[in-house]
């Protein structure tokens, strides 16, 4: 049982970190970023190249992933989303753009990094073993870092000026503008930050699960689900959603192990039922 809970927590931490970036972008711009998973993959490949191939320190590679994606995210916001949002009659149009960007990044990643699954040397080796629990040190470290990043992100949003500005922007764009918040700049910053989080988690997880070009789409969908569970556009919701999905998977796979084929069917059906009862997720805003 301890093992199942530990698995769930570890999974939850990484899921929550993935969901955070997505929910941030959604909250700020009402854009459902289909390309989030692809950004994650790109982050993974940057770390793979720098740490796995060029043997730079892992921390450096991780930082490089974050920065690369932040820059890319900023460019995408500035030159694509901003234009389309301004000119489109409906904000849903950005979904087509986001899908286009997702496909484009998919194609680009495949051309640049090839079709193979890539991995890097372990960042720390060894396994922590007790009677009921087995946990490799690198997973402990990555889980710890994920929680650390989540905490840093929350603190940043809560107690710094840019964090407050972004929260204000998410809650009332016009009012934020009247407070003197340069909304276009902070939209860009928010998008870049969302992309940065994707890159960061991609770089972090390459140490455990490696990375391959095609995994972006499925990751995006999984991230959407976490965001929905918690409530779209709410930071605490994304974190809760991540941990809940992680726990559901861990517990579900364990409990339903003898009915293996239906584990995910049960999880998904439960998710649909849950959302039917709570149409805005756990802590969602009514306008979702």
């Amino acid at each position, binding site marked *: 049982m301890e093992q199942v809970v530990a698995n769930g927590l570890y999974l939850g931490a990484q899921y929550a970190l993935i969901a955070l970036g997505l929910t941030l972008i*959604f909250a700020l711009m009402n854009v*459902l970023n*289909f390309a989030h998973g692809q950004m994650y993959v790109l982050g993974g490949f940057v770390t793979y190249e720098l740490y796995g191939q060029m043997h730079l320190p892992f921390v450096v590679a991780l930082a490089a992933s974050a920065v690369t994606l932040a820059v890319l995210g900023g460019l995408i916001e500035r030159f*694509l989303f901003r*234009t*389309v949002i301004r*000119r*489109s*009659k*409906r*904000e*849903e*149009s950005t*979904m*087509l*753009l986001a*899908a*286009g*960007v*997702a*496909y*484009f990044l*998919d*194609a*680009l990643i*495949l*051309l640049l990094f090839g079709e193979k699954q890539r991995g890097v040397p372990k960042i720390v080796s060894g396994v922590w073993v007790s009677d009921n629990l087995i946990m490799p040190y690198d997973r402990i470290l990555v889980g710890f870092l994920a929680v650390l990043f989540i905490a840093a992100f929350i603190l940043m949003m809560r107690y710094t000026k840019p964090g407050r500005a972004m929260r204000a922007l998410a809650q009332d764009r016009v009012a934020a503008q009247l407070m003197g918040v340069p909304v276009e700049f902070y939209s860009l910053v928010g998008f870049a930050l969302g992309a940065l989080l994707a890159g960061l988690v991609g770089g972090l997880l390459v140490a455990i699960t490696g990375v391959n070009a095609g995994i972006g*789409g499925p990751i995006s*969908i999984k991230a*959407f*689900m976490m*965001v*929905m569970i918690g409530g*779209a556009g709410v930071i605490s919701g994304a974190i809760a959603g991540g941990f809940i999905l992680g726990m559901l998977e861990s517990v579900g796979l364990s409990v339903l192990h003898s009915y293996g*084929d*239906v584990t*995910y*069917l049960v999880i*998904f*059906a439960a*998710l*649909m*039922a849950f*959302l*039917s009862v709570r*149409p*805005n*997720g756990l802590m*969602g805003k009514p*306008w*979702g």
Partner: protein
Amino acid sequence: MSTSARLATLVIFVFAVFVAVPVLIGLTHRTDFYYTLSSVALLAIASGGVWLTFYIGRINIGQGAYALMGGYVSAILVVRYGVSFWITLPLAGAFCAAASVLIGLPILRLRGVYFAMVTLVLTEVVRLLALALPITNGAKGMVSLPPPGPISLFGLTLVPSFDTFAERNEAFYYLSVAVMCVCFAALYRLVHSRVGRLFVALQQNEELASSMGLNVPALRVLAYSISSFFGGIGGAIFAAIAQSVYPSSFTVADSVNFMLNCFLGGLGFVFGPMLGTLVLYFGWDLLFQAGQYQLLIYSGVMIALMLVLPNGLLSIRPLNFRKRVRPLIWRRS
């Protein structure tokens, strides 16, 4: 626009689809286009359904679920119960419509991205069900489906068995575009009747609509079930063309594509999904010689289109029409 002009357009369209295209294909011997265009027609039908859910203000990423369901219903009836394909076609649609009533009643209370995500999950649920249920033959799929047989009425053969066609895909082409024409005509009539106005009222403001006595949940479910009916029909014909249906025949990617077709064509236009499907599906095929750069170019063009025409392809129109022709409303209330 006058009735005669509308009629003329209709005649031109029907002529183009049923005469000009086959003649062109005959002249150029590009018989592979029969399949491509059949696909476009069938996917356009399913996309048309998605468009209708957009019309009541719901982002639907679950049409793949109904297309898959339709394919399976038709295949199961044909293989296990020996029912004629032609009978299974409306039954597949009806089954999907019925299923969508049960599914829609709870989930249509959701809005915005929540509805979108639940429908996306629905696609996955149906795929997993197809894998898990015994009647669907699970992972092995339903294969070796017989091609559609003849339709006879009082001993008179109206449609010969598809086996007898030299160019089977030509027969499927006529079937697909005929069904597409019927579906879009029905959709057009729906949108331009009072029922369509009621749907717009829903799209714009459900609370206000219910305060004036509209049975909002029932109308939502009605639109959703018509939408799913379209999905089921499209899926059933696809199963017949491929003579097989697998849990992966329609996936999340298809659901997303149906939605993108609507966006690309333009949500304000009944025929938007038709055009969107044509461009997106055909575009991929046209780019096949680009080899490994296919996806890169495809997505690049998609992004460019979005930048130039963020409101859909049909939003370009001659200036003098702009005033008189108002796109069917789509604004957030």
